């Protein structure tokens, strides 16, 4: 399964992404499970709001963190996210 660059990406409605005060972390919640996210993973997932395609997510994140060269890391993470069902396309 790989990311289609021509389609927008959105966070799965079957999961919930939320900030946990007690853990000081963003987490993904789903039936019987919880994944704790590091800050960069959480930032990437927050960009998956159904309006952006892969390129835009990379651009926006590079701009937000005033850096370049994030493309590989972001794509690799989104592929894992897609495989885990955390995000969807179209």
């Amino acid at each position, binding site marked *: 399964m790989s990311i289609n660059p021509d389609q927008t990406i959105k966070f799965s409605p079957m999961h919930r992404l939320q900030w946990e005060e007690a853990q000081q972390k963003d987490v993904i919640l789903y039936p019987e499970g*919880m994944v704790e996210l590091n800050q960069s993973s959480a930032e990437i997932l927050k960009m998956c709001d159904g309006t952006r395609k892969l390129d835009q997510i990379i651009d926006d994140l590079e701009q937000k963190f005033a850096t370049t060269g994030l493309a590989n890391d972001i794509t690799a993470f989104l592929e894992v996210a897609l495989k885990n069902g955390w995000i969807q396309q179209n």
Partner: protein
Amino acid sequence: MAGSNKTKITPPRWLLAELTYACPLQCPYCANPIDYAKYQSELDTEDWKRVLSQARKMGAVQLGFSGGEPLTRKDLPELVKHARDLGYYSNLITSGYGLTEEKIAQLKEAGLDHIQVSIQASTQELNDHLAGTESFQHKKEVAHLVKKHGYPMVLCVVIHRENIHQMPQILEMAEELGADYLELANTQYYGWAHANRDLLLPTKEQFEQAEQIAQAFKEKVAGKMKIYYVVPDFYEDRPKACMNGWGTTFLTIAPDGVALPCHSARELPDMDCPNVKDYSIEQIWNESKTFNFFRGFEWMKEPCSSCDEKEKDFGGCRCQAYLLSGDMYAADPVCSKSPNHHVIQDAIDSAKASALADNEKPLIFRNSKNSRLLS
């Protein structure tokens, strides 16, 4: 000794709210205590709201509404709403009995995240027999409605000797119903399942065959359906890491307000489990004797205390150690290093003898009459 407070205490993450012991079904493997009928009192709505708020503040985030049948509580939508407002991810663990489309929509509106429907078997005849109630068709309808209303659909089937031969059909049924998650829970022998063990425990061959079928199916549906396979620990040589360690992650509140480190803990001797009517969740979690009892490793006996695997399985399940060896400090007898390990083979042999006997005794169904008779 037990109750040492040197162990670092981590906050609860999972809260199981057993709203009631009332249930229209009579599953002979029910995990409720055998003597449940003597606990008549139930927390009221305000008590539950306070419990939810306090546990959430400590860090609990996964919430299961269970029972009994939680739908018998009239205040369920109100509690669901309260849980949503607090930021819980909440799950209704139900037999589906009494669940209508209207209710499913109402609970969604209140903020329920998912519904876990249990089905007893893949055929009406066996399902209704095991449930002790005509319920099969309705459960299937409920499964469709759960999906229709946009919930992730979690199907739960408890596996034992009476239905294990249906594994292929159970998997087909889950696929046909469009389950997003399928929990295949091999029976854990506590509560009513312990009482019915001779009739429920499958043979090793049956286990292995069923597991093979389930694993192959898991690959086939990868990406579409997630399968949680709860292993049958009687056929393992190491115990499960019960509750991820006592008092580390899980908090169960029984219908009468008793707080438990695992749902069977009230059956352990002298446990004096604290009640949420008397203490806050924070006091219970951090300070109570019960929750500190098996925290850490200092309570352990040999062979666990010097074992290099103790951080992996915490010596296994305390309730199983007690039920099977009479000693709640002992290694879980499932472990091949346990001096009591032979009791597992005895149980397997006894179940096999029962299966081969001409006149097998009948299953004891979970209902108030039997509860009173047995306790």
